[in-house]
């Protein structure tokens, strides 16, 4: 039962990072002011995902913990770049959007790697009973 709960927590973290990437890349497909309006919501979304990760990290194995910590770093960067993008224009704005998407992608990747780490542990011979 505990394994299932641990996997679910990491799975939810992964979903949160996937949603963040989706929101940012959808926003980037828009033009001008619409992008900025959507970008304003990113720091709060990133913070919610970070809180979710911090709430579930304690129960993870070492590999998953490491990946989740890396996801937090990427989410923090996404929040900062999104905030910078809201204040910027022209080329600086484009750079900020590109960096925010890359950060969100990296966060989703790390969360996904954490899921893989929990699954590997769950299916290892020593974990089977």
């Amino acid at each position: 039962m505990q394994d299932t709960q641990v996997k679910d927590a990491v799975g939810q973290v992964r979903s949160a990072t996937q949603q963040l990437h989706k929101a940012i890349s959808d926003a980037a497909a828009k033009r001008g002011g619409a992008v900025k309006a959507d970008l304003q919501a990113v720091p709060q979304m990133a913070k919610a995902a970070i809180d979710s990760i911090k709430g579930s990290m304690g129960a993870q194995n070492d590999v998953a913990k490491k990946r989740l910590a890396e996801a937090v770093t990427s989410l923090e960067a996404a929040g900062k770049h999104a905030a910078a993008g809201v204040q910027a224009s022209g080329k600086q704005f484009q750079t900020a959007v590109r960096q925010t998407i890359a950060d969100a992608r990296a966060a989703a990747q790390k969360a996904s790697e954490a899921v893989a780490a929990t699954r590997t542990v769950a299916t290892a011979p020593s974990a089977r009973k």
Partner: protein
Amino acid sequence: MRNYIAVVFNDTTKAYDGLHALWQLDNEGPITVHGTTVVHRNDWGEYQVDSKDTHPALATAVGVGIGALLGALAGPAGAAIGAARGAAIGAASGGAVGAVTDVARADTRDESREETAFVLGAGQSAVIADVSEDTTLAIDDRMRELGGLVHRRAYGDVRDDKWFDDYPYDYYLYPYEYIPPYDPWWA
């Protein structure tokens, strides 16, 4: 083990079925999918990558990055070659960086046509994915049922390719199931 895979289909619809099946396998647990996209090659040999209508600043890099990954999946020799082809894709998207890269590596372009065909022939579509899998059976069996041919290369080997740092193609693989909500011209 962590692998990049390219699953080649003769039919675009089947490629989307393959994409969906990969995420289903992820949901069921035998594999973990870190990212996917679908690449098409038309009868004239031109490539098209499924993507959202991304910001113009991103368009060129999409082509270069995914082209590099296609080349990397063809093996070490294909890495540089795929980058050249990818630049052509990027140039088609209207980006200056792609055009510059294409000129710089024009000497590899003829070779690339043959090497990337190993992964994706004219008229075919491929699901490109970054996956963690304990065995290759789950993906191989499911894709075979759908008529797909799986090409696989170790994640570590691809990352060791010298081209990897030049083209960060990882972030062109969507970290969730994404299918464009329109009928593309190649379908």
